[in-house]
């Protein structure tokens, strides 16, 4: 097991003929992901790395029975591409694009919710269930199949933590980024819930950052609902207030969303809060030595 994606995932790539879409389609195929179709309006009938391209998601789903879509289309068309995937019946949509207008995200996340669709992102690296399936832009090589679930708001910082875990000899059940924009489709709690009920996941690493209150809410969930051990890191302790640290979400405003508030909330929830990303492997291996 793993969460969200596995060997049964049949993937559509929206924007497959673009530079990023084509590059990452190749990388996902090499990793073993079952990419069944691509979509680029006006380029139906072509093929990219041996994958057939369709004009619409609807056509692609009809012919391939795809159940997942990843979106690489340019920013201004991203929200529309999500609507298209939802209306074509796709139930898991991953959006990589960063910086979709906030009000567009407010509407599209609501539409996804009404249609029982799980939307991951935007501004996220995607999902990987090591050894089974990769739907995203992360380097496959640093991952290893195993029992640690990893969830994060960031991309490269997630790789850092994964590498630390892999170097310590542990693997991951599923790794995903929920996205660094102010509004994202899926939150920490949804993912923690899935990890808690996934038999393959034995422990969870959660990587948060300053801004908003998603970390505090996740802390409450861990405290009240989770039985598995959780290791955490909060990025942005050294960020000045009022400045947007790259991610739209990462901004401290009127004393709220500080690293201190999040760390306190997590410690109170029993999460083992680490002071830097490179020590996840070490701490996880300590835990398993003493508790097994």
């Amino acid at each position, binding site marked *: 097991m793993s969460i969200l994606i596995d060997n049964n995932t049949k993937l559509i790539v929206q924007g497959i003929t673009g530079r990023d879409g084509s590059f990452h389609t190749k990388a996902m195929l090499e990793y073993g992901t079952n990419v069944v179709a691509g979509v680029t309006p006006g380029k139906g009938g072509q093929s990219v790395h041996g994958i057939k391209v369709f004009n619409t998601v609807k056509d692609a789903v009809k012919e391939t029975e795809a159940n997942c879509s990843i979106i690489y289309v340019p920013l201004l068309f991203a929200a529309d591409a999500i609507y298209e995937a939802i209306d074509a019946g796709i139930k898991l949509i991953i959006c990589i694009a960063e910086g979709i207008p*906030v009000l567009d995200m407010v509407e599209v996340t609501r539409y996804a919710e009404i249609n029982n669709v799980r939307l991951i992102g935007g501004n996220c690296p995607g999902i990987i269930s090591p050894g089974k399936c990769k739907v995203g*832009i992360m380097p496959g090589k640093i991952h290893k199949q195993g029992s640690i679930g990893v969830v994060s708001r960031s991309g490269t910082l997630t790789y850092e933590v994964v590498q630390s875990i892999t170097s310590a000899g542990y693997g991951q059940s599923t790794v995903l980024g929920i996205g660094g924009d102010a509004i994202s489709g899926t939150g920490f709690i949804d993912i923690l819930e899935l990890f808690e009920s996934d038999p393959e996941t034995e422990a969870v690493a959660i990587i948060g950052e300053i801004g908003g209150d998603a970390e505090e809410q996740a802390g409450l969930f861990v405290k009240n609902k989770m039985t598995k051990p959780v290791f955490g890191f909060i990025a942005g302790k050294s960020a000045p207030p009022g400045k947007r640290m790259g991610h739209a979400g990462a901004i401290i405003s009127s004393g709220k969303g500080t690293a201190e508030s999040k760390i306190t909330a997590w410690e109170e929830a029993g999460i083992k809060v680490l002071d830097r990303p490179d020590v996840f492997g070490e701490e996880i291996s300590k835990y398993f030595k003493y508790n097994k």
Partner: protein
Amino acid sequence: MKIHEYQAKELLEKYGLPTPKSVVTSDPVKVKNSMSELGTAVVIKAQVHVGGRGKAGGVKIAKTPDEAFKAAQEILGMNIKGITVKKVLVAEAVDIKQELYIGITVDRSSKKIVFMASRAGGVDIEEVAANTPEKIEKIYIDPALGFKGYQARQLAFSLFDDSKLIKSSISIFTKLYNVFIDNDCSIAEINPLVITNNNELVAIDSKINFDDNALLKHPGFEELRDMDEEDADELHAKASGLSFIKLDGDIGCIVNGAGLAMATLDTIKLFNGNPANFLDVGGSSNPEKIIDAFNLILKDKKIKVVLINIFGGITRCDDIANGLLIAKDRINIPVPIIIRLTGTNSEEAHKILKAENISVYTNMDEAIKKAVAVSHEGEISQ
């Protein structure tokens, strides 16, 4: 993106919201002459983006043309929190029976638009929000439904007892909501919205911020940007596809990804170093970005060492290595560089740099410890 009060006021007027008569100018003589059309008393307000201008002396009331002239002279050129006042808004003074607050923003946790209203309007609204949040009525608007009539009524009943005001306020809420939606605002607020002695509602001051992500949809908004209010380096960085924030330490940082960049700064501090900047080069492999990054951070003469921390995903490490070589060739880098490269194509990158006798770290902690040690070197020998 922030805009000035007078620009926000023009936008509100376009939507038919009631505002006082006013003029905008940088000429004290015009301020003096404006009294003939604005009435017997005027309020002269500094146009700067920073808050707290009233407490800094940037808002004055004048009752004669000479007073107005003098007040304008005092305010124009005044320095408020590092910004020089270049324009004033001169508005007819309105008699105020009560100050209210109304504002709209996006609530991240519910992913809904939230409309707020309070009877405790005025300069201390943030304290009200912090200390007595129950004094602020909040309506959450489902994006699938839009702003409903009953919600506007709920806001009206929370603000007013007078039936005439309850009625007339409904159109104000609706218009402000339209301003927010049509213009992709991140904030649209009127504070204070005042009740005059004649029981009229007037928007005395307003604040409108646009969602930076939506600026592509509204190309006209760029004209509203006041370059004097923006940090030149941060704007330059943005134009080059970099995300940059100046800090006050001595370790220059070039990192890919916002999360990793923040974690790099945190780890530098943890190891007793001081980062000079936040800099995210993003997910691209363009060597020009590395050159731009160096140019930006080397402007700061306090820099003692540059730390490059790259975890290649989309970014390919060999491209970063080549970019670094081009940068070293083209610009003078007077301080040591500590490089950490791992991830996509890192082996090729290490080969490229090794051939040039540049040593490369693969571990983040080790690279940061080294950079911190280098930043402290001068201090030991002094």
